[in-house]
C-alpha cells in the first residue's frame, strides 16, 4: 500500500480525494433545499458566476484594484520600514527615541486603527492605503533593524583595513550583509499587506477590489460571487508570493545552496 505514496501520479490522485469528497458533499447540500441552499450554492453556479464576472470585466477591474493597492502599500510601507529600521540600527539616539513608540503602536491590532482612520480620512482609498502600508511597515522595520545590528564584526574589520568611508561601509558591507533578513521582512510584509488589503476592502466596503466585491456579495447573499473572489484572491496571493520568492532567490544568489 505504501508503495503507492512513492508514485507521483498516485500522490496527486490521493491528494484530490478529500477536495473531491468535499465538493460532492457541498453539491449534495445545495440540492437539499431549505435554508441551507442559500449558503451552499450549486457548484455550477460558481462557474457561471465566474464566467459572468470575467466576461463583464468586473473581475479584472477588482483584481487589478486589489493588486495595485497591495503593491503600492507594500512599496510605501516597505521603503519607510526599511529606512526606519536601518536608521534605528545605526543611530543609538533614534533607536532610543523611536523604538519604544514603534513597539507601543505595533501592539494595536492592525485593523483596530480602521475606525480612527475612518474618522480622519473617510473610508476611501487613502484610508485603505494607509492601513496596507502600515501592515508592510511593521515587519520591515523589525527585520531591517535585526539585519543591520547582526552584521558580523569580522566583515566590518575588513572595511576598516581597506579604509572604507562610512558610505562604502554602508553600501558594501552593512546593506548586503543585512539583505537576507531585510528580504525576510519584505516577505512577511507581502503576506501582511495582502491580508490587510482584503481586510480593509471588506471592512470599508467602498470602491472596487476583490474584498469590496466579497463584502457586497455578502450583503446580496451571493455565495457564488464570494467563492469566485476567494479563488482569485488565493491564486493572486500565491502568484505574488512565488514571484517575490524568485526575486529573492536572484538577489541572494550569492548565498549558494545553503540558503
Amino acid at each position, binding site marked *: 500500500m*505504501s508503495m503507492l*505514496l512513492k508514485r507521483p501520479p498516485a*500522490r*496527486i490522485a*490521493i*491528494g*484530490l*480525494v*478529500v*477536495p473531491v469528497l*468535499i465538493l460532492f458533499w457541498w453539491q449534495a447540500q445545495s440540492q437539499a433545499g431549505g435554508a441551507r441552499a*442559500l*449558503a451552499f450554492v450549486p457548484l455550477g453556479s460558481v462557474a457561471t458566476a465566474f464566467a459572468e464576472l470575467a466576461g463583464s470585466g468586473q473581475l479584472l477591474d477588482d483584481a487589478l484594484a486589489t493588486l495595485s493597492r497591495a503593491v503600492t502599500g507594500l512599496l510605501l510601507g516597505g521603503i519607510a520600514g526599511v529606512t526606519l529600521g536601518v536608521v534605528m540600527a545605526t543611530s543609538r*539616539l533614534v533607536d*532610543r*527615541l*523611536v*523604538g*519604544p*513608540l514603534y513597539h*507601543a*503602536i505595533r*501592539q*494595536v*491590532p*492592525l*485593523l*483596530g*486603527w*480602521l*475606525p*480612527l482612520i*475612518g*474618522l*480622519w480620512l473617510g473610508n476611501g482609498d487613502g484610508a485603505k492605503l494607509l492601513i496596507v502600508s502600515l501592515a508592510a511597515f511593521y515587519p520591515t522595520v523589525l527585520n531591517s533593524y535585526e539585519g543591520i545590528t547582526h552584521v558580523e564584526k569580522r566583515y566590518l574589520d575588513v572595511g576598516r583595513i581597506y579604509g572604507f568611508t562610512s558610505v562604502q561601509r554602508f553600501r558594501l558591507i552593512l546593506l548586503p550583509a543585512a539583505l537576507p533578513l531585510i528580504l525576510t521582512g519584505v516577505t512577511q510584509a507581502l503576506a501582511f499587506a*495582502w*491580508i490587510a488589503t*482584503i*481586510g480593509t476592502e*471588506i*471592512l470599508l466596503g467602498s470602491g472596487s477590489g476583490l*474584498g469590496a466585491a*466579497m*463584502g457586497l*456579495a*455578502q450583503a446580496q*447573499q451571493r*455565495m457564488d460571487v*464570494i*467563492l469566485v*473572489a*476567494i479563488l482569485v*484572491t*488565493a*491564486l493572486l*496571493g*500565491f502568484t505574488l508570493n512565488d514571484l517575490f520568492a524568485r526575486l529573492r532567490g536572484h538577489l541572494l544568489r550569492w548565498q549558494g545552496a545553503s540558503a
Partner: protein
Amino acid sequence: MMARPIPAFIPALAPPLLLIGAWQAASATGLFPAQVLVPPSEVMRTLASLAVNGELSAHLGQSLFRLVFGFAIGATAGLAFGAALALSKWIEALFSPLFLAVRQVPVLAFVPVLVLLLGIEEGFKITIVAVAAFFPVALATFDGVRGVPKAWFEVARVYRTPLVPFVARILVPATVPPVLTGLRIALTRAWLVLVAAELLAADSGIGQMMEMGRQMFRIDVVLAGVIVSGLIGFALDRGAKWIERRATRWRTA
C-alpha cells in the same frame, strides 16, 4: 570615574510624552473640530467613565470570551491536525494539498463565507477566531514534529517504547518550543481577526465599541478602544512569551 549613565527609560519616555503634549496643545488651540481631535485628557476621562459604568468590562469580557473559546478550539484542532499530518504519510498525502491551498486564502476573506453560513452571532465570531488560530498552530506543530531527529524514533523502536510514553516523554518535550512559538503567533493573529470581525458585525465587544464610536463621531471612544485593544495585544504577546521562556528553560538549563 564613570559618569552615572542616564537610565534607559528617560529617553524612551520622552517621545511619547512629547507626542501627548503636542496632541494636548493642538486640541487646545480649538482649530480642530471634536470629531477629528480630542485632547488626551478627554480620552482618559472617557476611558475612566467607560470603566466605571461597567460598559468597558462588558465589552472586554465579551471579546475575551470569544478569543479564549475560539482560540482553544482552533489551537486544539491545529495541534491534532499538524501532528497527524507529520506522523502519518497517508494523512499527509490525503490532506496536505488541500491544506496548502486553503492556506493561500487570507483569513479575513473567510468572513463573508462564514457570515452567510453561520449568520453574525457568536458562532461566527468564535469560528473565525478558531480558523485564524488553526493555521499557524497546525503549521508550527507539523514543522516541530518533523523536526524531531529520526534517530529518536529509531531509539524508541529499538527499546520498544510503547506509544503513550513515547509521545509523553519524547515527542512532546521535543516539539514544545516550536509549538509554543506557533501558539503565540496564533494568539496575536486571533486577536487581530477578532477585532476586525467585531468591527464588521457584532453587538458587543471592543471592536464593536470602536465601530459605534466611529458611527457617532465619538473619537474619544474610538481612541479609548485603540488603547485598550493595544494593551490587550501587548499583554497577550508578553504573557505568551513569558510562558514560552518558562516552558523552554530546560533547554538551556
